[in-house]
C-alpha cells in the first residue's frame, strides 16, 4: 500500500514517522534519566501531556507557550533555508524583549504603546541578528560562534538594564512592567493566552509567503540548496545571508515583544531573564522537529508548547524538576540527527525494506 502513494506524500509520511520515532526514543531515554533520579516517568509524562492537551485550560496554556517558540523557530528555519546555522534567536529575543519593556519607563499617549513596543522589539532583534550577518558575510565568521557570543552579550546587557536602568520600583526581582495600555488583550480571561498568538501566526504566514512566494525567499532557498550554483546564477550570496539574519532577528525580536506585552502577570523581564531563558533554543527544537517548514513548525510548536505548559504540572504532581523538559528535547534532537532512523529500526524489526 505504501508503494501506491505518490512520491511527495510518501516523503512526508516517512518524515513524520522519523520524527515520531525520534520523539519516542528521546522520551524513553529521558524516562531512564528520571528513573535514575528516583522519579516515576509514567507519572511525569502523564502530567506533562495529558492535562495540557485534554483540558480547556491546558490547551489554552499550550497555545500560549507555543506563541513565542513559533517565532524563534522561524529564526532558525530561515537560517537553515539559506544554509546558515543561526542559533542566535535566544539573544535576539532578549534584545526584542528589552526593546518592548523599556516603554514601561516612558510616559506616552496610550495608543502609542503597543506599536512602539512592537517596532522597538523588531528593530533591536534585527540589529542583533544583522551583526552576526555582517560578521558572516564580510568577515567570514562562523555563525555558530558569533551567535552564541552575541547571546551571552545580550544576556548581560539586558540583565544590567534590569538591575541598573529599568528596575521595578516595588519588586527588585524584575524590570518595570509595561503599562496596561501597552499589553496585548487576553484571548481567554484567567489564562496566559493573549493576542500574541495571533501576531505569532501572522508572522508565520508572512514568513511562509516571503520564503515561497517572493523573489527574496527564492534566493534564500536557492543559496541554501546550492550556494555555488546560486552565485553563478547571479544571486548575491552575501546579501542573502544578511537578509536571512535580518528576517530571523525580526521574528525573534517579536518573540521577545510577545513575552513582555502578552504574558500575565508580570509583563516584565524577571531576574536572570528567567521568564525568557530558553525560548530561543526551544525554537531550535521546534524548527528541527518541524523540518524547518512553517507548517511543520506550527505542529511542532504545539508539541513543545504542551511540554512547556505541562512542565509546571509535572513539577507539582510528579515532583520532577521542570528542567527535565529540556533534557528530553535534547535527546529528541540527538535522535533526529541520525539519518534514516526509520529504515534502521524497520530493518531491525522485520526485515522490511
Amino acid at each position, binding site marked *: 500500500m505504501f508503494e501506491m502513494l505518490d512520491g511527495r506524500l510518501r516523503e512526508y509520511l516517512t518524515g513524520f514517522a522519523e520524527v515520531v520515532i525520534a520523539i519516542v526514543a528521546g522520551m524513553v531515554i529521558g524516562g531512564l534519566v528520571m528513573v535514575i533520579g528516583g522519579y516515576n516517568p509514567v507519572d511525569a509524562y502523564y502530567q506533562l501531556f495529558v492535562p495540557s492537551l485534554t483540558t480547556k485550560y491546558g490547551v489554552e496554556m499550550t497555545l500560549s507557550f507555543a506563541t513565542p517558540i513559533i517565532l524563534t523557530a522561524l529564526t532558525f528555519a530561515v537560517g537553515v533555508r539559506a544554509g546558515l546555522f543561526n542559533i542566535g534567536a535566544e539573544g535576539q529575543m532578549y534584545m526584542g524583549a528589552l526593546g518592548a519593556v523599556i516603554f514601561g519607563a516612558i510616559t506616552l499617549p496610550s495608543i502609542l504603546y503597543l506599536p512602539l513596543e512592537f517596532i522597538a522589539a523588531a528593530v533591536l532583534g534585527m540589529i542583533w541578528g544583522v551583526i552576526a550577518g555582517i560578521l558572516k558575510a564580510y568577515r567570514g*565568521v562562523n555563525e555558530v*560562534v558569533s551567535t552564541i*557570543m*552575541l547571546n*551571552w552579550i545580550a544576556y548581560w546587557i539586558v540583565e544590567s538594564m534590569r538591575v541598573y536602568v529599568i528596575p521595578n520600583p516595588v519588586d527588585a526581582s524584575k524590570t518595570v512592567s509595561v503599562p496596561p495600555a501597552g499589553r496585548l488583550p487576553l484571548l481567554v480571561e484567567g489564562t496566559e493566552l493573549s493576542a500574541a498568538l495571533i501576531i505569532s501566526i501572522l508572522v508565520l504566514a508572512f514568513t511562509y509567503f516571503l520564503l515561497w512566494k517572493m523573489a527574496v525567499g527564492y534566493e534564500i532557498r536557492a543559496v541554501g540548496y546550492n550556494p555555488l550554483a546560486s552565485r553563478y546564477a547571479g544571486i548575491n550570496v552575501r546579501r542573502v545571508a544578511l537578509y536571512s539574519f535580518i528576517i530571523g532577528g525580526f521574528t525573534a525580536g517579536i518573540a521577545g515583544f510577545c513575552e513582555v506585552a502578552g504574558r500575565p502577570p508580570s509583563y516584565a523581564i524577571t531576574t536572570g531573564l528567567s521568564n525568557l531563558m530558553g525560548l530561543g533554543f526551544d525554537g531550535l*527544537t521546534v524548527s528541527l522537529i518541524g523540518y524547518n517548514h512553517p507548517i511543520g513548525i506550527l505542529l511542532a510548536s504545539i508539541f513543545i508548547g504542551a511540554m512547556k505548559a505541562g512542565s509546571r504540572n509535572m513539577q507539582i504532581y510528579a515532583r520532577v524538576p521542570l528542567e527535565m523538559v529540556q533534557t528530553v528535547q535534547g535527546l529528541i534532537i*540527538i535522535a533526529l540527527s541520525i539519518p534514516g532512523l526509520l529504515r534502521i529500526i524497520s530493518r531491525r524489526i522485520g526485515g522490511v525494506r
Partner: protein
Amino acid sequence: MNWSMIWQLFVQTLDASTPLLLAATGEIIGESAGIANIGLEGIMLISAFMAVYADSAFANPLLGVLAGLATGLLLGVVHGYISAYMKGNQIVTGTGVNLFAAGFVAYSIIAFFHVAGYYTIDLSLTVPKIYGVSPISISSLIIAVLAYYLLFKTQIGLAIRACGENPEAADSVGVRVELVQTLASSIAGLLTGLAGAFLSIDWNASITKQMSAGRGFIALATVNFANWNPLLGIAGSFLFGFFWVLGEWIKNIGWLKQLIPVDLFNTIPYLATLVVVAGLIGKSRPPKYVGVPYKRE
C-alpha cells in the same frame, strides 16, 4: 606591578585558558579527522557535573577527574559513532548534546544534590595544587604539545589529517576512515571532559547550571584562531583566557564601577572573542572535509 602580581596574573590567565586549551586541542584532533563537534559546551557541562558527583560521592578528587574524563569520552564516542558510521548531521547532534546538557545538569543538581542551580564542594575535595598551579593546567600544555607531535610528526597523525582533507584517498590506501574519525572524536570528548572536571572540581569548587558559560564555543573560536595547530592553540587559549581575567580585573576598578554597571563587564570575554575572530579573515583554513560525512561511491 611587582613579580608576585605578574605571577598571579599569569596563574589566573593559565586557569582561565585551561578549559579552552583542553577542549580546543581535542577539537583540533577531531576536526582534523573531519568530525566537527559544536557540542563541546554541553560535554564540558555534563562532565563538570559528573566530576562533582563522583568527587562528593567518594570524597576523592582523582575519581572526580576520572568521572569527568569518562563522561567526555562516552559523549565523544556517541558523537563520533553517529557522525562517522551513521553519517548523521554533526551540527545537529552537537546541538542536541548542548540542549540535553543544559537540561540534564540543571535537573541533576536538583535531583541529586537537592538544591536549585548551584552546588558547592568543600575545598578539601578540589584537585590539589602544585605551587599554586593546577596539575590539570600543566597537563593541558603538555597535551597540546603532544597533540602537535601526534598530528604532524607521526603516521597516525597523517592518517587522521587524511580523513579530514581527503577521506577518499585515505580510504583507498587502507585507512579505516570511520574508525579513525570515531577515535578522533572520542579524544575530543575525552579532553573536553577533562576541561569540565577542571571547571568544577579544580578551579571553581562548585557546579552551576551555566558553568561552561560559552567556553565550549570559545574553544571552537580558538581552533579557528590556531589554524588547526595545537601549538598555536596554546597562544589562542591564553589570549581568550586573558579576556576572562581582564573582565574580572576591570570589575574591581572603583571609579569605573561608579560609571558603568558591573554586570556589563561580563560581556568582555565574548565581545573580545568576536573581535578577534572577525579579524582572522582569510588567515585560517579548515580541513577540507570537516563536517561532511564520508560516503563511499
